[in-house]
């Protein structure tokens, strides 16, 4: 949404850009954006379940923001919030102009998939299921670059 808004704003001014979707590969389905305090890695990220989606905006917040493998902490400001409440995504979108990638969600510039992974992501993982009222994801920090940029 923010990426398309930036694209439209540039287009009004005669600047053509490419919409990029940063996706996970190598069997990882989700990415966790900065910042988290790591308690155990690899491990399990355990959130409280809601019917809305998976994961549902990190809400409701567990005690002390502790999601087992990681504890939530102040991250990059963005989306008109000091720390956006959603920090786990299946993918992430921004604009490419020339060789740079402009990220309107966080006001950042990325240089490559490796740069995005190294500087903006804490870990990657997969949905594992549910136990009672808790959603469970496996999480780890892969040594290889697992983010791919897919032009739309």
């Amino acid at each position: 949404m923010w990426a398309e808004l930036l694209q439209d704003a540039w287009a009004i001014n005669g600047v053509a850009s490419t919409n990029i979707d940063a996706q996970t590969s190598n069997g990882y389905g989700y990415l966790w954006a900065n910042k988290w305090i790591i308690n155990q890695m690899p491990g399990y990220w355990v959130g409280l379940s809601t019917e809305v989606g998976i994961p549902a905006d990190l809400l409701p917040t567990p005690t002390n923001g502790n999601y087992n493998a990681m504890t939530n902490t102040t991250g990059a400001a963005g989306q008109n919030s000091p720390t956006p409440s959603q920090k786990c995504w299946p993918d992430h979108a921004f604009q490419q102009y020339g060789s740079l990638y402009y990220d309107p969600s966080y006001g950042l510039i990325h240089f490559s998939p490796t740069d995005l992974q190294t500087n903006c992501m804490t870990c990657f993982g997969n949905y594992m299921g549910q136990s009672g009222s808790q959603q469970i994801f496996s999480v780890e920090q892969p040594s290889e670059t697992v983010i791919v940029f897919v032009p739309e």
Partner: protein
Amino acid sequence: MKQVIQVIVSILILVTSSAISQTSNNISNSQVMKIVMINRPTNIFIRMLVPGSALHQSKSRTVEIKAVQISYRFTSKPNSGLASFISTPTFLEIHDPYTRKICFIDADHSFYVSDTSGMKGFTVGPGALIWSYSYFELPDSVGDSSAISQFEKSFDDQKFNQEWDNRKRNRIELRQVVPQFYFSDGPYPGGGTPLPKLETIEQTDGILRLDIRNPVTKIPADFWIDLKSKKVTKSVVDGQEMDLNTGKPFAVPLKAK
């Protein structure tokens, strides 16, 4: 002389009590945590798949059967693994009418499959099919309360951790065999990923056919899955067969190749 003996005795007591304390800690760290039921078992209905076989001319069937759902807590907080963070591990006691066994397995799966290898629970998650096996099985002739009691005696936090660790391998990725954003709540990045709605399940000769629908976009998807090789052999999304070899994290329609 008396004072020297008193000092030696004091030192011996200190050393001994320290050793006892250390031993006690070691035992505590390796102790397994049992489970305690936290409320009365409740009856629910589950969807169970009975596989078919071309050789035996038996058709795959899906039946609704009654199961007993039981919620527990661990006697003390486990020291490690997922169990240390799960507040109410919940299980099903299933009377399998085909194998004549009572099975105890994780609750919350989308459907259950009974075959000669035992009971398995399958979850159709956003982007993956995940399964787990029953923790404990015993003959159907055993009464309910005795079966639950035997399950509780046999179960601990380490078994729980092991079965959940196994889910990292007991899975087949579906995200790679559907178009980009299929599992999202809309055709754009950064959306939520709701649990897919399960419509039809069939299994014949080890091939699981799974028909699902995105609950938000209402788009259907049908998969043919070889459970032995853990591979999706065919995928049809919204009526279009998918190219499964794009080299990307998602598939595209075969016609668009």
